[in-house]
C-alpha cells in the first residue's frame, strides 16, 4: 500500500512536469508576441524590446522554463536583470519560493493571484460538494427504493430538467428569483471565512445551491442506477435469507455496494471543480480560479496561464491518487500493487 502511494506520487510529479512543459511550449508555438502585449497603444519597437529583455522573454524557451522550475524551489526577483536590480532596488518584485511567476499585465505575482483566488473557489466547491453529495445521493437512493412510483419518476424528471439546462441559465434563474425577486436567499457575495463565518455562509448559499443542483442532477441518476443494479444482486437474497430485516439489507448491504463506485466519480468531480468553477464564479461575480483562467487566457497572460494549468492539474492528479487509494480501501477486491 505504502509502496503503491509512493509510486503513484512519483508518477503524479512526472505528470505535472509533463503538463507544465506542454503548456509552456504550446504557448510559444502561438503567433502572438507576449512582449508586444506588455505595453499599450503607444509602443515603440524600443520599449517592446526593453520589456522583452526585462521579462526574460528574449531567452530561449527551455531557459525560461528552467527559470520557472527553479522558482518553485528558490526565490526569484523580477525583472530578472542583475543590472536593473542594482540600479533600482525599490522597483524590483521579490517572489519567494514557491514562486509561480510574475504577471506583467496585472503587475502582480502569480503566487499572490492564486493565493487570493483559491479560497474563493475552494469555498464554492466544498460547500456545493457537500450539498450535492447529500441531496444527489440521497434522492438517488430514494428514487431507487421507490422505483416506478411517482416519487421516482418525479426525481428522475427533476434531474433531467436540471441536467439539460446550461449551468449559467440555472445560476441566473436562481439569482434572479431566489435572491433578487423573492429574497429567499441572501445576495451572493464573497466574504472570507476568517473575516466573518456567518457572512461567508450567507454569501455562499446561492452559488452553492446553483452549482450543487447541476451535480446533484447527475448524481441522482448515477446513484439510482447503481442502486438498482445492486438490488438485483444475489448476495442481497442471501442477506434476506439470513433473516435480516429489510432496513439492514438496504442500509448496510445495498448501500455499501452501490455507493462504492460513486466515490470514484465524486473524487474526480471535486478535483476538476477545485481547478475553478468558471461559470458559477462569473454569474455570481466571485473572483475565483475559474475566472482567473478565463481572463488570463483572453489576454495571453502566460505566467498566469501556466500556473493555473498547473494548479488545475495538481488538483486533478491528487484527486485521482486519493480516489485510487480510497478505492483500494473500500473495495477489498482491488489490490494496490
Amino acid at each position, binding site marked *: 500500500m505504502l509502496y503503491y502511494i509512493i509510486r503513484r506520487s512519483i508518477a503524479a510529479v512526472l505528470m505535472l512536469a509533463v503538463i507544465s512543459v506542454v503548456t509552456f511550449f504550446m504557448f510559444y508555438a502561438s503567433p502572438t508576441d507576449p512582449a508586444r502585449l506588455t505595453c499599450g497603444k503607444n509602443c515603440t519597437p524600443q520599449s517592446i524590446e526593453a520589456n522583452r529583455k526585462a521579462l526574460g522573454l528574449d531567452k530561449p524557451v527551455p531557459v525560461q522554463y528552467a527559470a520557472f522550475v527553479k522558482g518553485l524551489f528558490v526565490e526569484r526577483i523580477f525583472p530578472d536583470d542583475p543590472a536593473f536590480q542594482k540600479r533600482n532596488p525599490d522597483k524590483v518584485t521579490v517572489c519567494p519560493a514557491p514562486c509561480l511567476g510574475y504577471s506583467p499585465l496585472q503587475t502582480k505575482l502569480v503566487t499572490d493571484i492564486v493565493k487570493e483566488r483559491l479560497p474563493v473557489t475552494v469555498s464554492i466547491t466544498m460547500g456545493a460538494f457537500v450539498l450535492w453529495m447529500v441531496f444527489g445521493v440521497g434522492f438517488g437512493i430514494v428514487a431507487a427504493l421507490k422505483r416506478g412510483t411517482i416519487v421516482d419518476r418525479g426525481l428522475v424528471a427533476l434531474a433531467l430538467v436540471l441536467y439539460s439546462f446550461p449551468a449559467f441559465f440555472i445560476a441566473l434563474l436562481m439569482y434572479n428569483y431566489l435572491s433578487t425577486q423573492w429574497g429567499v436567499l441572501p445576495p451572493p457575495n464573497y466574504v472570507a471565512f476568517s473575516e466573518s463565518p456567518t457572512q461567508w455562509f450567507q454569501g455562499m448559499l446561492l452559488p452553492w445551491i446553483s452549482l450543487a443542483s447541476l451535480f446533484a442532477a447527475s448524481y441522482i441518476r448515477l446513484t439510482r442506477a447503481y442502486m438498482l443494479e445492486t438490488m438485483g*444482486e*444475489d*448476495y442481497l*437474497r*442471501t*442477506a*434476506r*435469507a*439470513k*433473516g*435480516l*430485516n429489510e432496513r439492514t439489507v438496504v442500509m448496510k*448491504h445495498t448501500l*455499501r*455496494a452501490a455507493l*462504492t463506485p460513486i466515490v470514484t466519480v465524486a473524487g474526480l468531480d471535486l478535483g476538476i471543480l477545485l481547478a475553478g468553477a468558471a461559470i458559477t464564479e462569473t454569474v455570481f461575480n466571485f473572483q475565483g480560479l475559474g475566472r482567473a483562467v478565463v481572463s488570463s487566457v483572453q489576454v495571453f497572460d502566460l505566467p498566469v496561464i501556466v500556473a493555473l494549468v498547473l494548479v488545475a492539474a495538481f488538483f486533478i492528479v491528487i484527486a485521482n491518487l486519493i480516489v485510487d487509494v480510497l478505492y483500494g480501501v*473500500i*473495495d*477489498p*477486491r482491488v489490490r494496490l500493487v
Partner: protein
Amino acid sequence: MIRDTPADDSRKPFLEVKDLHVHFPTDDGLVRAVDGLDFTLERGQTIGIVGESGSGKSVASLAILGLHRRSKAKLSGQILLEGEDLLTVSDSRIRALRGNQMAMVFQDPLSALHPYYTIGNQIVEAYLIHHKAGKQEARKRAIEMLERVGIPNPGRRVDQYPHEFSGGMRQRAMIAMALVNDPKLLIADEPTTALDVTVQAQILELMKDLQKEFGSAIIIITHDLGVVADVADDIIVMYGGKCVEKGTVDEVFYTPQHPYTWGLLASMPRMDKVRRDRLDPIPGNPPSLINLPPGCAFNPRCAHRGEVEGDRCRTEVPELLEAKQGQSARCHIDAARRADIYAQSAGLKT
C-alpha cells in the same frame, strides 16, 4: 418415504407442503412457476427436487423461506413447518425463522456472498441476528463453523474476503453460514453446480456428514440426477411447475414411472449400464411457464403420446396417481403399461 396422505399417527410431519402455487403476474401473462406441489419431509431426511431450468424448483424453495415479494408473487396453498403455516405468518415471524430454523445454501457462492464483507463478518452477522451474543463469542462460533466444514486454518480465513477463497471453499463457507444457527431445515439450491466434479463430491459428502451430526432435514434442488442419487432419500421430479413423479431414490432410479423421468435417466451417463454410443437427449425445450401446453405439459416432447387413446394427453391434465406403493406419477398411460414400456426400452439398450 413420502406419504401422499397424512400418516395415521397424530404427530405432525416436520415440513408439509400442501398444494403450493406460486404465480407471478407479468405484463406478458401469468407465470405459473409452481402449480400445485405437495410433499412432506421429516427431520434427518433429504428430499431432492429435480428438474430442468424453469421447472419451478428454485421458486418453490424460495417460497418456503418466504423470499418472494408479496407484491410480485401470488402464493397459495400451505407450507407447514412443524404445523405453522409459513404463508400466513407475519413478516417478523418468518424473519425470525429464516436463517434460524431454516437456512439456505445458494448456487454460485461467489455472487451469493457479499464481496465487501469478510467471510467471518457475514457468518457473525447471521449468528447475531438470532442470538444475543457478543462479537467475540460470535466470532469464535464463526471460526468453529469454518473448521467444522473443513476449511483449513479457519482463524486466518475468517478475516478473508470471498474473492480470496476458492470455489469449493466458498461453498463450504456458505454452508458454514447456513448452519451457524443449527437450522432444522436446510435448503440447498444447486449447491454443487458451480463447482468442479471432485469438489462437488466433497461438498455432498460434507452435507451428508453435517446432516448426521445436526439431524436437519435437507431439501436439495438440482438438475443433476447424480447429485440426488448420492444424497437424497426421496425424489420429486418437476416439470412445468408441477410434480410429475415422486418416490424414493431407488424407486425413481430403478422403476421410473413418468416418460419425462425416463428421458432424464436416458440423458444421463451411467456407470452401471453398458455404454452405448451416445446419450439420448429429450427432444425439444422446456415449456414456457406462461403458455403451458394444454393437457399434460410434457406431451409435445413425449415419445409415448400414442399409447393413450384419443387426445387425452393434449386435453386433460393427468392427476398425480400412485403407481405402486409410495411412488406416484402424473401420466395418462396405465401404470402396468408404463412398466412394460420401460422394461422394454431398458432391455433393448442393455
